[in-house]
């Protein structure tokens, strides 16, 4: 059934292997008896349950009877400390002669590997045993060395030797993984791992298949195609080396090799019948894990008459109860003693394909995983993992009494190795998975693209093509998508510098702000979209929940945490309530979220860029008011935005004309043309992803100078009129923008042109948002203090005028409010509103000059 018909030899091979799950064979397997006696020796050679019950049920009773008949067990039970995973049983004659490191290995119990199925059984081809020749697909040239496991082209000895060489010699100084902390990359990597095992005592050796492939292509291929055969050989090899080196080491059990990253890391959707029984690595998300299932591996029986005991191994999911006591020949006297039987742990896990891998409009696929022994409970629902394991297919029995079989197989994966993908994210190490995505041609193409002189404009145009013009805004958002370089100043006590660029769009309703947000949200992989109206502080940050089942406190993350390393789009920013907005303060500068709730105190990373859109408070933008007055947001928050853009409806005939043309074209353009543009979106996405992960520009000398100049200039402009027009925050923004622009060019160095563009964009945004509507002068203090300098000056002048007025009134202890206002108005040459008047009164009250009670003003 399993693999394609093209490999008949392989199929034959499996037949002999007794009871491995995927091959419901043994309908006719005459040769098995011999093999059986040979290697069903094991003690705790536990059968994994998921063997093929349907198969053996229907298969001729002969085979079953054969396997479970007591005589064989007697036969096999002799060498009890003898197990397949140990080199002894595996060894071809040559390996035995070599003298395996029995000393160490022997003292260490073997733990069998249910993850590999019951491979051990009946699989070794003993050269000296006769009658097996038929099973040996081997060239007969030199004994021992050319022998292969049947059904495969694996020669145990050479395979082992190669793997040992790999362990001893493999060095790759360039390849750095996050687990590699403390490894000397110029020394053989896996020897260091073995040393680690000796120290730590965790007898598992994880082997990256990628390394193996670069070391020995053929060995790698064998591993992928015949994992059941090859992995035990690897175990054997690893143990030999280990106990050779550390003969006195005491391990819980012998070392087990766990390969991972079987290069073809693939999508669940691509699994097909050809992958059955092969080593595969797939990624996905755990959606359900079962309870721990104790699986009986070996049953212990005792005769109730004579107390004779015997052990029966599980065979393809069944225990054959001995019907006759071998000692006293009483029938039906054997009783199962549960306490002395052996069990192993097993867990069923459902893995669902990760949302990124899914084609649009389809529901995700799932696949079942079986985890064994210590892999049980390693993952929780919700974890993103990469699983390496062996893909299995088992037929489903319809009914034990009916010979028909449901023509469908059940599939699952026996897990050999887990690798969580999202735990890395918390550590902030670069996303390996994302880097892997690019093929060489793609990278070439992107690099080619980056050399174009107008790449910046090009990309800006490709961004949300359905939204018309607003080029500077698109450029701003483009830079936001790229982000600045991350700098670490922890050692100087400043912590991380924010690399993310925050942007606020405000403007008239109906200027497609939401559409822009939606576009960005759809473009970036880790984007979140929320609306200010509908989100609460906890929804944005994180909340603590009590799991109803386990009574455990669980931290549920909100939009901001989820968009770590991405963009959080917040629509209707102005409608957000005060307390919700306040959590943004920390996120937008420190890029962290602190939580102190229900006994959980922690700080989560939230390195997210914020793209917010706000509507003016009076539904239409009032050009006579400042930004702050228009959107009524606290300036403390506004100053955290690097760029604030106004999206206003331009009043310009040429613009209208182009807009109309653009819109009309939307209403009849053909699908194909849209497809083309869709392609662009994919390119854009890749371009950004590539730049984000590979390009990390640093400031050049010149650029540094240019930035300093720019900053000094900005401050100068203000100081000329007695006000400050730039703060260090603005300088930081400039740096970020310049870096992002360098990223757009795939340049590792920030140059003057980057600074120029950063300056231009920053000025452009300032011009729009920080222009004092009364004077027409760009004034940064509108954003930083909420009031323009001129406004403040005017306020002071008015207060002074009022003070003078009151003083001129002489010694009157109290004055009428309305009277005073009228007098002031009569005197002043500008229109004095009631608000202005009240403000002036308040200012004077602050100076302890007067107090206001109701409608009277009292002098102090």
């Amino acid at each position, binding site marked *: *059934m*399993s693999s*394609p*018909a093209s490999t008949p030899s392989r*199929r034959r091979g499996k037949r002999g292997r007794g009871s491995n799950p995927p*091959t419901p*064979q*043994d*309908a*006719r397997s005459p040769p098995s008896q011999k093999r059986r006696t040979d290697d069903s020796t094991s003690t705790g050679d536990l059968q994994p*349950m*998921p063997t093929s*019950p349907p198969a053996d049920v*229907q*298969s*001729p009773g002969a085979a079953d009877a054969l396997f479970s008949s007591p005589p064989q067990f007697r036969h096999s039970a002799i060498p009890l400390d003898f197990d397949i995973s140990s080199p002894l049983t595996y060894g071809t004659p040559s390996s035995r002669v070599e003298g395996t490191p029995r000393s160490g290995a022997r003292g260490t119990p073997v733990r069998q590997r249910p993850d590999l199925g019951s491979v051990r059984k009946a699989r070794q081809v003993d050269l000296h045993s006769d009658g097996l020749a038929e099973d040996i697909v081997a060239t007969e040239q030199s004994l021992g060395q050319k022998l292969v496991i049947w059904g495969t082209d694996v020669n145990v000895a050479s395979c082992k030797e190669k793997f040992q060489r790999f362990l001893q010699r493999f060095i790759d100084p360039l390849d750095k993984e996050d687990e590699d902390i403390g490894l000397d990359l110029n020394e053989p990597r896996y020897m260091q791992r073995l040393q680690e095992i000796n120290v730590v005592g965790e007898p598992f050796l994880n082997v990256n298949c990628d390394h193996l492939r670069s070391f020995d292509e053929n060995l790698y291929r064998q591993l992928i195609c015949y994992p059941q055969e090859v992995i035990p050989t690897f175990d054997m090899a690893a143990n030999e080396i280990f106990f050779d080196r550390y003969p006195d080491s005491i391990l819980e059990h012998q070392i087990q090799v766990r390969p991972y990253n079987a290069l073809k890391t693939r999508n669940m959707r691509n*699994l097909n*019948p050809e992958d059955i029984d092969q080593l595969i690595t797939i990624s996905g*998300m755990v*959606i*359900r894990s*079962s309870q721990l299932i104790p699986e009986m591996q070996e049953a212990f029986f005792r005769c109730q008459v004579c107390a004779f005991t015997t052990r029966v191994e599980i065979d393809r999911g069944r225990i054959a109860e001995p019907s006759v006591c071998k000692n006293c020949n009483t029938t039906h006297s054997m009783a199962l003693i549960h306490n002395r039987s052996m069990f192993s742990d097993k867990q*069923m896990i*459902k893995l669902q394909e990760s*949302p990124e891998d*899914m084609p*649009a409009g*389809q529901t*995700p696929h*799932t*696949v*079942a995983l079986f985890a064994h022994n210590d892999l049980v409970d390693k993952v929780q629902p919700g974890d993103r993992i990469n699983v390496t394991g062996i893909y299995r297919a088992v037929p*489903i029995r*319809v*009914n034990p009494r009916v010979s*028909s*079989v*449901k*023509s469908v*197989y059940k599939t699952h994966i026996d897990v050999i190795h887990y690798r969580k993908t999202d735990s890395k994210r918390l550590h902030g190490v670069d996303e390996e998975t994302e880097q892997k995505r690019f093929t060489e041609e793609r990278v070439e193409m992107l690099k080619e693209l980056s050399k174009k002189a107008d790449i910046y404009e090009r990309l800006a145009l490709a961004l949300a*093509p*359905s939204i018309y013009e607003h080029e500077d805004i698109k450029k701003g958002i483009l830079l936001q998508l790229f982000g600045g370089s991350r700098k670490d100043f922890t050692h100087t006590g400043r912590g991380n510098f924010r690399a993310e660029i925050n942007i606020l769009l405000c403007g008239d309703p109906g200027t*497609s702000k939401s*559409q822009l947000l*939606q*576009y960005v949200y*759809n473009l970036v992989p880790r984007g979140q979209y929320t609306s200010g109206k*509908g989100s609460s502080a906890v929804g944005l940050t994180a909340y603590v929940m009590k799991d109803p089942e386990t009574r455990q406190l669980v931290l549920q993350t909100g939009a901001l945490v989820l968009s770590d390393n991405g963009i959080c789009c917040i629509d209707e920013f102005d409608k957000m309530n005060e307390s919700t907005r306040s959590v943004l303060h920390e996120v937008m500068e420190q890029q962290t979220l602190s939580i102190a709730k229900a006994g959980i105190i922690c700080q989560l990373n939230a390195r997210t860029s914020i793209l917010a859109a706000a509507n003016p408070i009076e539904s239409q933008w009032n050009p006579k008011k400042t930004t702050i007055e228009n959107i009524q947001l606290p300036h403390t928050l506004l100053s955290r935005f690097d760029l604030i853009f106004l999206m206003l*409806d331009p*009043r310009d005939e040429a613009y*209208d*004309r182009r807009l*109309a043309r653009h*819109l*009309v074209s*939307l*209403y*009849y353009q053909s*699908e194909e043309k849209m497809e083309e*543009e869709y392609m662009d979106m994919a390119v854009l996405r890749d371009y950004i992803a590539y730049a984000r992960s590979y390009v990390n520009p640093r400031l050049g000398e010149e650029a540094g100078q240019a930035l300093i100049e720019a900053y000094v200039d900005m401050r100068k402009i203000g100081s000329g009129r007695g006000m400050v027009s730039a703060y260090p925050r603005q300088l930081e923004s400039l740096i970020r923008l310049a870096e992002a622009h360098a990223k757009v060019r795939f340049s590792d160095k920030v140059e003057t042109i980057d600074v120029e563009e950063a300056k231009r964009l920053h000025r452009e945004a300032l011009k729009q948002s920080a222009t004092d509507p009364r004077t027409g002068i760009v004034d940064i203090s509108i954003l930083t203090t909420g009031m323009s300098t001129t406004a403040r000056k005017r306020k002071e002048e008015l207060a002074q005028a009022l003070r003078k007025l009151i003083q001129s009134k002489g010694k009157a202890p109290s004055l009428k409010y309305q009277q005073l206002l009228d007098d002031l108005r009569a005197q002043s040459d500008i229109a004095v509103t009631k608000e202005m008047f009240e403000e002036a009164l308040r200012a004077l009250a602050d100076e302890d000059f007067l107090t206001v009670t109701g409608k009277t003003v009292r002098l102090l």
Partner: protein
Amino acid sequence: VGDWLNSPLSIVQGIFAQNVPNSDWEKKVTEYFKEKLKENNATNWVPSLNDVPVHYLKPNSLVKFRCMVQDMFDPEFYMGVYETVDSNTNARVLHFGKYRDVAECGPQQEIDLNSSQTVTSERQTFYCVPVPGESAWVKEISFFASQARVSPSTSYTPSRHKRSYEEDEDMDLHPSKQKEQHTGKSCCSGGDIHGCVEPKRLETEASAGHHVISPNCSPPLDLNFPLPGEKGPACLVKVYESWESFKVNDVLEVFGVLSVDPVLSIVNSEERDGSGLDPMECMDTAEEQRVHSPPASLVPRIHVILAQKLQHINPLLPACLNEEESKTCEFVSNFMSELSPVRAELLGFLTHALLGDSLAAEYLILHLISTVYARRDVLPLGKFTVNLSGCPRSSAFTEHLYHLIQQLVPASYHLRMSIESMNHSRFIPRKDYTANRLLSGLLQLASNTSLVIDETQLEQGQLDTAGVHNVTALGNLITWQKVEYDFNYHRMEFPCNINVLITSEGRSLLPSDCQVHLQPQIIPPNMEEYMSSLLTAVLPSVLNKFRIYLSLLRLLDYSISEEVTKAVEEDFVEMRKNNPESVTADDLHKMLLVARFLSLSAGQTTLSRERWLRAKQLEALRKARLQQQKCVNGNEL
């Protein structure tokens, strides 16, 4: 009727036996059936699961099913080809496992699971439900289309008893229905009558189905229909080819082998009993078992030989309009020639339905033929959500309006908004991980379903979290034409194409593309009488023309010539020059939308200057009304 209808598997066997060594027998099978179905009206000879109760159909016969893909299960590996060995004679025979659930073999035979001839293949299972909200008239017309030819072949019904039962039922149904059809006048008021008759028929079959499986299945199985109160068979559709091309919510018509092998049900009960013993079976939870292999009598399996996506489910139209078949072209051109009278009549009909408001009726036509024809990055183009404000609240006007719409469109749903329904119903489909299936929600609808949201009955009250989510989902549906399905750990967007009509008193709390304020010219004293008399006044043939009109125009292409583009441009600039406030880009969007559907509604596939002016005029009228309304109750902004 040939063998290919009654026992398709034997045909497959024949082809298989002839071509056995090479694998192209599969292709030959598909071709054979394709040919057969092309023959004159052959598709009508195939009994449909939509019309005929499952237990009347012969197992392993060819059936068809018109359905929506509600969920996609995991792909299955099955024995494509397997070999059996006779235990007495040792004779080996090859069999095919395609189109089958169970690998069969004779009493003396054993399956050789280890044969080198075995071929493992892959197939995909879709969980399909009848098209949600399918109108009664769609069911009925297709029922007659097929029943007329199938009834002589009812001799295949398994037992005499059942046959007579069906014939009785047919006799009961046929005369009455035909009478309706012919007398015509009663037919249209039949909205309610059909509503009664049809479900009853289906109910009997459903209850019969329940009766059969009751010993096995204690709690009734949730068949997971998107809309409450839906009836009909759900089906596990096994697809053998190009399943990647199908998506969730696609409407399909499948032709395939019906499999109701009772063995499938036995499997379940056995497995459930023995789950404690056999570790292989406890791999899935009991819920998952129930959902993924429900009793075959309740959820039959169809092994698909041919499947096609349907552009529409209107039985009055040829199934596939894109084909360059003379028949189709003829049909379209014939209809186009008499388009304008049909439009006029429809307009008149809707004007009466909207209490004499012809402007609202005009907009309603535009709304009914609107469809999302493309998406520009995130922006869906061609959606035209109309908010009909100013609906009289008391007289159940909206209820009756919906009944009229139901008579016109092939699929629709009436969503009565209330605090209760917002808080307690499931709008967004949600993944149930214990049963490993997608629990359907109200918003899992097929393309071009009319969703009529009634806001007039909404009272003040508190929305809870679920309610807020539901309202947000509705808002997203209207603005972006997409629904975010809840996968617990993440959400996934599914684009959709649903025509939303909102009826409300004031401006709706949901977003909409255009708000039309209803100005009733007549207030009928008895709304019910008025509305039902409207329906009876329309001849069934005319009603059918309306139905064709609405379904057909939706499928037409459309373009704007360079010349008109220029004109529109000029116009826009001109309008802005006078008063930039009055016309925004948004308004232009709307005008272009109106112009598009206005042209299409007249059967024109390009925009003409006149249509553009007419569109502008309509928009101006509509806006003037809103302005007026604003003045009337000044506090409403």
